[in-house]
């Protein structure tokens, strides 16, 4: 990979990160008109409280001063103080990060494995009953709102699995019981996320393997007399995997926003639930912090996906 290409990509990513910070400012300070009115909507507040909140958010200063202050703070890692929690936004995000990584990570791994396996099988036996049923089911599941599936699952399974939170308060503090408890709480949210997400991997894997299936090198491999499953596993699938690897990286950034409704349904104490709590406030400082952090993470993931694609696929490097 040429240094020039790498530098260009990094410069692009840096520009995007700056734009994310600017957009975060515009979204929450300029578009709402008066952010303080938006935040206290429907609540009885005195004039003094409004003035105090204005001073706290700094919205009593001219816009350009607010902007430079916000950018300077954001670059120093200070994303302000949450209005509802009365704590630094960054601290709140840090606390809620790991539950989301655990939940979304597990769900993504399972969804990728399931989607790739089903997609590859379906494409190899194109138009078989297996292919038609698995594609049909994937399309139907892709059409489902994630949170609806979550509501249904928690209603159908009843008391079999806990339908809220991350652990019971009375679980003994030793590691095995705690881990089991968390795993028990994870069953329903993970199941919900996997059921909707795997469909996308299935469809991408399927169409990408269908394209590879008729390539000349497959015919060559067959002509050598290789067994059918070896042709698939050693020749077709590795090439068909390339678009999916990129997709996984693109999705990693989006997985958190996919977790918003699932975490809300199952009150899983992660970033998704934090976003929900911020929007019900509405706690604009918190929402702004979450937005900047999530959007920044996605921008970085996209750069990683691009770079990885070039490393893995010589065809992209050549062009």
């Amino acid at each position, binding site marked *: 990979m040429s240094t020039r290409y790498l530098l260009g990509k990094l410069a692009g990513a840096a520009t*995007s990160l700056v*734009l*994310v910070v600017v*957009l975060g400012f515009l*979204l*929450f300070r300029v*578009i*709402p008109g008066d*952010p303080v009115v*938006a935040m206290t909507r429907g609540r009885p507040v005195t004039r003094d409280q409004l003035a105090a909140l204005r001073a706290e958010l700094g919205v009593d200063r001219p816009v350009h001063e607010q902007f430079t202050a916000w950018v300077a703070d954001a670059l120093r890692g200070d994303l302000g103080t949450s209005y509802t929690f009365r704590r630094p936004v960054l601290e709140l995000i840090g606390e809620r990060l790991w539950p989301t990584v655990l939940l979304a990570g597990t769900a993504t791994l399972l969804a990728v494995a399931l989607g790739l396996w089903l997609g590859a099988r379906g494409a190899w036996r194109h138009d078989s009953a297996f292919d038609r049923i698995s594609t049909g089911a994937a*399309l*139907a599941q*892709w*059409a*489902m*709102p*994630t*949170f*609806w*599936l979550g*509501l*249904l699952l*928690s*209603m159908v399974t009843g008391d079999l699995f806990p*339908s809220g939170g991350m652990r019971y308060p009375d679980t003994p503090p030793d590691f095995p019981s705690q881990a089991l408890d968390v795993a028990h709480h994870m069953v329903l949210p993970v199941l919900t996320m996997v059921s909707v997400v795997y469909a996308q991997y299935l469809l991408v894997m399927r*169409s990408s393997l*269908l394209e590879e299936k008729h390539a000349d090198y497959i015919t060559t491999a067959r002509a050598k007399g290789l067994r059918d499953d070896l042709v698939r596993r050693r020749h077709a699938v590795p090439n068909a995997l390339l678009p999916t690897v990129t997709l996984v990286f693109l999705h990693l*950034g*989006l997985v*958190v*926003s*996919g977790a*918003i*409704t699932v975490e*809300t*349904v199952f009150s899983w104490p992660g970033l998704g639930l934090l*976003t*929900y709590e911020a*929007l*019900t406030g*509405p706690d*604009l400082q918190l*929402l702004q912090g*979450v*937005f900047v952090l*999530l*959007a920044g993470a*996605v*921008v970085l993931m*996209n750069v990683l996906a691009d770079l990885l694609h070039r490393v893995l696929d010589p065809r992209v490097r050549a062009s």
Partner: protein
Amino acid sequence: MSALVRRRRLAAAAATWRSFAAHRAGLAGLVLLGAIAALALLAPLLTDAGGLDVTKATGAPYRPPSSEHWLGTDNSGRSVLLLTWWGTRVSLVVGLAAAVLSVLIGTVVGVTAAHFRRTEGPLMGATDFFLALPSLVLAIALSTVLPRGLSTIVLAIAVTSWPSTARVVRAQTLAVEARPFVERARALGGGHAHVVGRHVLPAVLPLVLVNTTLAVASAIISESTLSFLGLGDPTRVSWGSMLHAASSYGAVSQRAWWFILPPGLGVVAVVLAFTLCGRAMESVLIPRLGGRR
């Protein structure tokens, strides 16, 4: 338009229809869509909107399906059948409006970037930037800071979903503009309006149409998600707002499946219908992508 041209266009349309009708799944999607649209349009004639008012609710809260309320009642005693029926209208209108607006923005940006090469850098830079942003988070941010209402939801969905259309339309415009007939049109003195209006737009239209169909499907999911999070229009019943009420007022612990199932099935039916239509149209109108059935 001369008679010959008209006949040729009619024949082309008939051929397109025949190959669309050959896709059984696409045809099923179209029929389903027609039925749902008819139900949505007929709602004011066949039902009484007064039943949507909480103060005029006729039943007790959370009653299972009975002969009086075929799909049971919600948390305030309204008929779930009536709510779901009227929810169709809001979900369809929001989905269609958001998809059309989003595809419109995407097409203008895509065509402009490809036709006026000077604008390409900044426009595609902006497109890539918005493509990378997590669209649900951006939509949530917009609907939190703007006043609640249908137009806010439409705007939030459109503003966050146009970039993919812009990319596809730009690629197609570049491909069309590289063809000899466009060069000839330019050499004969055709201006920007002529080239874009007479050559580029007709060529990207099938793509735009397919894109709109698929965009409606995702816009309806987005609408239900935003309304479920409580960001919808509080004065109107949509499938998302029904599910918001169901989860806020304990329908799950009450095992009130009749309140949770219908709105979700509504979303699945409409989204599936649009997706099937879109996929069938894709393989008919854009044959080079064909075979992806």
